[in-house]
């Protein structure tokens, strides 16, 4: 990447009046108006109104300079960037106890002394961090250049030397070599040392001074996003209170940060830290808004590591490469954030201490650079031998063989990872568990007693394949996915009209039923125009009604990335910039919507559109105002904007192709050869069958939220391409794996073990979703629920799984978390449990009515039992009734104990009146519905 120099514009900033306009523009335009979701707006108007056109332009230019280049990271290339733990060791063939230095090329200078990580790597690739151990000694080939002291290479003279680490073991010593470059430092620069200190020390976090309203009257840009703004706040605002040119050490910025003066945020760095010295030097040198070469890439060493059980310390090193070619160890100047909220301590020098076994990633932020490193602190594998339920007589025993002979590639990948992480693989699910799971996960209903019995009786080795194929061809499969996609594209009655919702639902169902390539129909969905009644896929822009929402939604639904943060400021936890956000949004700026017969009952409710709507594109140039650059920008795909130069006009906008619409261009960019699109789809399909994504949550792909098993995700994405984006074929691949057929096993509460479900070493247990739950209750009781959606045509369906829109009124389905389809987030569907749900299940009107309803299944049973009591041998016996009730509700026969207990209650009544029989059956039915086994998918 070419180097850039940043013009000095101290002059421009030197007048207070100008800066006060910057303040005004930045303060009011940027965040108050655009980002008021993040905080509240200024309470009282400042009544400062002045012509701002010229200043706005100037500001735009300055910002354009300042928006620091990022590595050109096209989303397509960078998607599966998580690395596996196995990569650390680079080779399973290494001898036990080989020594490894990271990074292999070190850079040191006075201000940025190089730290180093030394790993003792075992034959299985798991390592021990020996960096701080006394058995480790260092020597430099040219000792006059640098010396090793307190974990760092101290620069003595510039140059390059080889360094050797030697580790003494009882069996002899082992050594490893690395190269060390020693360089000199450039003067302290505001936007390098000062900004990185503020970020590293947490001063500019959203919870501190980075808040929209600052803290204690002092406000900074969020995570150092905006150096101009920060310069003003530090050096200009309040005269020179925050920096003291006469006595720099008396500057508030230093006395507060070192807690020498009362500071609510406590001590952020100490007086002997390099950060203190840097800020002191900067003030001493005139506190200029000086600039430094920008960061072109940030790398964390090691990218991933597995730490042997019993060792709870790991280290990472962060290296930044600058536009002038310099490389520095910025570990101490980076903000390091763990992906887990507790149980781990991350120190400023890159030392990570874990309290127990865990798999986490550490996100590193240094100025504009972002990177992440994955660390697995292995669990105690000896515990696996007695863990889970393996000791009892329960199903779901664990498999310790890590059988590498699995036929299925997903199983092999998962077995490999489980072995590396030393977690136990759950055994196969028992037959009853499997068939119930297969039905619920694919068609959203329970198998009938006949289907369960048929499956149980089938001894053919191809039995699962046959059932999987049968269910993939079942209309229930199409409905299940039409519902999922209706959730994701927000197919809700108010904006779609009931007819529109039904038509879109039906169109989605048809795409699934005909197994049209996902890529193809999604491309059509995001580029269709015309009447939403005549051309239902045009509805996507009926539900996503403005350019910014369409951009956020399509990124989240089809790419699994959340870009909303980048609307107001560069994304604090991800690489998305405002350029990405507005480039994507620009695609949707020329959409026009014409209502044909809009007669909402409430004229004020702009969210309700009745009748048809016609979606079209105007002839205008698609472009949108980029508030950061204060200019109009044209369409570009995420990650495709080149920001090496500060000249915004150099961004590569997608040029509209002749004869193609901007939406067709978008569709092509989105769906063709876009690895993030593939990864997201693969992950969402996996999520459907496991209730958990490989990236979890499934719509939050982020460097700092890596896939739990990157190879598996890559494999699925590759398969999907190989299978021609066929949902049914990819589904078959997944469902036919041993992984899908693993038992659900106990969650261990032992912190010395890694959990199993994130790695799919066991099947995740979860509560049934709202729709399959109500349908199952209807099926088991024999009383369907009429479900009405929408206002217009009062259509009634009797299966919640087949409902096109959303319920007209809150009720059972909403209590159990059916989404209202107002968000594209998977999180809108709640899988949580609540007291309201328990009251609904134990004493709710639906359950009560269905159990008590005349003519429900119990009536039939009562009749059969009475006939049987009278000697009719063709009628069902008490055993048969109980067995059928269990089969229907739980897809298994009752155990001896359950049967005995049920018979004890039932048998004495069969000779008496119907009512007495019915009471017993009602109680059993209630108990079956309220059993955890019924309410959960496992």
């Amino acid at each position: 990447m070419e180097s850039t120099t940043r013009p000095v514009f101290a002059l421009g900033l030197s007048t207070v009046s100008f800066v006060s306009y910057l303040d005004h523009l930045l303060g009011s335009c940027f965040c108050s108006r655009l980002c008021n979701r993040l905080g509240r707006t200024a309470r009282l108007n400042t009544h400062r109104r002045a012509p701002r056109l010229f200043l706005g332009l100037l500001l735009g230019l300055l910002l354009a300079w300042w928006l620091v280049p990022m590595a050109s990271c096209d989303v397509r290339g960078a998607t599966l960037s998580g690395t596996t733990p196995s990569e650390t060791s680079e080779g399973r063939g290494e001898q036990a106890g080989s020594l490894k230095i990271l990074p292999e090329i070190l850079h040191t200078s006075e201000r940025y002394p190089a730290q180093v990580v030394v790993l003792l790597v075992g034959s299985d690739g798991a390592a021990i961090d020996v960096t701080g151990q006394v058995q480790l000694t260092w020597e430099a080939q040219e000792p006059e250049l640098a010396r090793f002291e307190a974990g760092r290479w101290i620069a003595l003279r510039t140059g390059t030397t080889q360094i050797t680490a030697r580790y003494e073991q009882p069996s002899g010593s082992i050594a490893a070599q690395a190269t060390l470059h020693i360089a000199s430092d450039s003067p302290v620069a505001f936007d390098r040392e000062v900004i990185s200190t503020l970020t590293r020390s947490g001063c500019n976090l959203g919870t501190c001074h980075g808040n929209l309203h600052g803290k204690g009257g002092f406000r900074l840009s969020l995570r150092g996003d905006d150096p101009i703004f920060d310069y003003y706040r530090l050096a200009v605002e309040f005269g020179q209170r925050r920096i003291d040119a006469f006595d720099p050490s008396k500057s508030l910025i230093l006395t507060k940060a070192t807690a020498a003066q009362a500071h609510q945020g406590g001590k952020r760095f100490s007086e002997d830290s390099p950060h203190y010295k840097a800020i002191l030097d900067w003030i001493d040198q005139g506190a200029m808004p000086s600039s430094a070469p920008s960061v072109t890439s940030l790398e964390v060493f090691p990218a991933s590591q597995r730490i042997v059980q019993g060792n709870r310390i790991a280290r990472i090193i962060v290296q930044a490469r600058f536009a002038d070619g310099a490389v520095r160890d910025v570990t101490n100047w980076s903000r390091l954030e763990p992906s887990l909220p507790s149980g781990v301590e991350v120190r400023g020098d890159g030392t990570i201490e874990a309290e127990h076994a865990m798999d986490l990633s550490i996100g590193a932020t240094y100025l504009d650079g972002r990177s992440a490193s994955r660390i697995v602190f292995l669990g105690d594998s000896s515990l696996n031998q007695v863990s889970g339920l393996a000791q009892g007589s329960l199903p779901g025993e664990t498999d310790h063989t890590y059988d590498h002979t699995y036929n299925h590639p997903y199983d092999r990948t998962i077995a490999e990872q489980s072995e590396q992480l030393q977690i136990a693989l759950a055994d196969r699910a028992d037959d009853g568990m499997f068939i119930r799971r297969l039905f619920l996960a694919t068609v959203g209903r329970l198998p009938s007693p006949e289907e369960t019995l048929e499956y149980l009786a089938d001894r053919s080795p191809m039995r699962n394949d046959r059932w999987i194929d049968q269910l993939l061809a079942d209309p229930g499969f199409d409905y299940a996915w039409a519902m999922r996609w209706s959730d994701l594209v927000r197919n809700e009655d108010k904006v779609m009209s009931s007819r529109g919702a039904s038509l879109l639902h039906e169109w989605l169902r048809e795409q699934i039923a005909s197994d049209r390539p996902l890529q193809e129909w999604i491309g059509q969905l995001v580029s269709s125009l015309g009447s939403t009644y005549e051309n239902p896929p045009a509805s996507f822009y009926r539900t996503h009604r403005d350019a910014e929402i369409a951009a956020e939604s399509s990124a989240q639904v089809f790419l699994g990335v959340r870009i909303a943060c980048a609307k107001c400021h560069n994304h604090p936890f991800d690489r998305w910039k405002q350029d990405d956000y507005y480039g994507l949004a620009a695609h949707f700026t020329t959409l026009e919507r014409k209502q044909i017969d809009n007669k909402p009952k409430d004229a004020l409710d702009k969210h309700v559109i009745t009748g048809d709507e016609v979606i079209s594109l105007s002839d205008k140039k698609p472009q949108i105002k980029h508030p950061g650059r204060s200019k109009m920008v044209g369409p570009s795909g995420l990650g495709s904007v080149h920001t090496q130069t500060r000249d915004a006009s150099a961004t590569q906008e997608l040029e509209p192709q002749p004869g193609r619409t901007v939406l067709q261009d978008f569709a092509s960019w989105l769906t063709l050869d876009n690895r993030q699109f593939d990864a997201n789809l693969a992950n969402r399909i996996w999520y459907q069958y496991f209730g958990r994504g490989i990236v979890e949550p499934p719509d939050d792909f982020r460097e700092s939220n890596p896939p739990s098993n990157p190879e598996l995700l890559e494999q699925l994405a590759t398969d999907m391409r190989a299978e021609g984006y066929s949902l049914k074929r990819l589904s078959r691949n997944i469902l036919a794996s041993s992984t899908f057929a693993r038992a659900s096993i106990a969650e261990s509460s032992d912190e010395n073990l890694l959990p199993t479900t994130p790695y799919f070493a066991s099947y995740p247990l979860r509560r049934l979703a709202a729709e399959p739950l109500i349908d199952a209750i209807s099926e088991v009781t024999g009383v369907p629920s009429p479900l009405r959606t929408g206002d217009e045509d009062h259509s009634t369906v009797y299966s919640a799984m087949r409902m096109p829109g959303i319920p007209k009124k809150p009720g059972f389905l909403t209590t159990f978390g059916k989404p209202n389809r107002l968000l594209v987030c998977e999180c809108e569907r709640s899988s949580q449990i609540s007291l309201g749900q328990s009251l609904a299940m134990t004493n709710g009107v639906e359950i009560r009515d269905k159990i008590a309803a005349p003519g429900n299944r119990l009536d039939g049973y009562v009749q059969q039992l009475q006939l049987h009591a009278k000697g009719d041998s063709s009628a069902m016996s008490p055993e048969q009734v109980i067995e059928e009730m269990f089969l229907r509700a739980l897809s298994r026969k009752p155990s001896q104990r359950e049967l005995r207990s049920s018979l004890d209650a039932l048998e004495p009544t069969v000779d008496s009146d119907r009512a007495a029989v019915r009471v017993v059956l009602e109680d059993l039915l209630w108990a079956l519905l309220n059993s955890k086994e019924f309410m959960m998918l496992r």
Partner: protein
Amino acid sequence: MAKGCLEFQRSIHRRQCLLQASQFGLAGLLGGGLNLAGIGSPPSDSKPRKARAKSVIFLHQYGGPSHIDTFDMKPDAPDGIRGEFKSISSAVAGSPVCEYLPRWGAQLDRWAQIRSVHHDMKNHNPACYYSLTGKRPATDDIRLRDTLELFPAYGSSVAKFSEPVPGVPTFVAYPHVLRDGAIAPGQHASFLGKQYDPYFFQSDPNSAEFGLPELQLPANIDLARLHRRRGLVELIDLEKRLIEQSSDARGLDQLQQQALKILSSTGLKDALDLGSEDPALRDAYGRSTYGQSCLLARRLVQSGVRFVTVYFSQSIGGKGSEGWDTHQENFKDLRERLLPMSDQTVPTLIEDLESHGLLDDTLVLWMGEFGRSPQVGDRDGKGRGHWPDCYTVMMAGGGVQGGAIYGASDAKGAYPASDPVGPEDIAATLYWALGIDPHAEVIDTQGRPLAISTGDPIDKIFY
């Protein structure tokens, strides 16, 4: 001093500064600060104040009650602003109240008034959302949509940060769903998750049939039968031992036990049994939905519920129906319906809480989504329009200093004259009063860490 204060208005010191002003006897001149008339000696500013409330009763008056016609009377304002009502003296010297609030006025020394609340949402639903959550909506959309991106209700945040009390829900809300065309957001747990939703019902506590069907066992199911059913569930659950295996299953089981406990025991069910209350007390509260709802609030707090929200009406109302949106016939509606009902019910609630020894532990909040325009003459010429720019919020109990007046409106009641307060600060105050960190962090649907309130607690009105 005044100069110093102005300079610091934007900084965190501004309240301290004004409080000092009031201590120096300049309160009258500045028209602001904390007026502690009727109280022995003003507490010194450095005195650490302690959160002492255990519960909150949140009385929400949908539609927007007029501040000028209730507690922030402007007897010296011109005709078109002063309105038709006379002011009468109250238990707090220098703080007259409306002639139609005599009982409330007589116990005004139990209340703190915050007279400088303001925001910028002019429509009911966005303003309502703001008042129910302390979070400013992104747009003043008249039909603001209720999505999971929006902030949770106060009670839900309280539930999130409180230890549950066995046998009762933490947060109960009733007897209306607020809606103005569309359901007003802010009435549930939103992104906090369903486990923090209020226990909500629409059944009318004033109705003879008041009861909650899901809490009443059907006639043919007695406790013995319920017990038998639970035994059967345990038998089936034992088979696959899911409760041992999964925290979700464990949670389901615990909630099921809690539901059965509620069904088969006293606690919540008893609290809801208004029939067991002394008819004289029921009469004192007023035989209205609001009156009986407030009585129920006291009973719920007594049973251990931490946060009770009583909605005055389901719609904004006005024109003689339901709510407080008095665009027309403002004075007639207040005089004949809204003020008499409030004057009967709210003071009775305070007295009742006190006689049960609950007032010290229970913070009572009385407010709407905004105030009403100083200028009379909306629509029929006799109404007042929406006015978010300045209004009054009332607080009592839970450690509040009776008689305190925080902030002030200008001569017309149009804008804060001192100590402007946002709904954020009201939110922060009630969290603070309960001992919950007002800036405690929650995670929204986008994974963003957000503070439950961005405001500052007005702890100066507490002992």
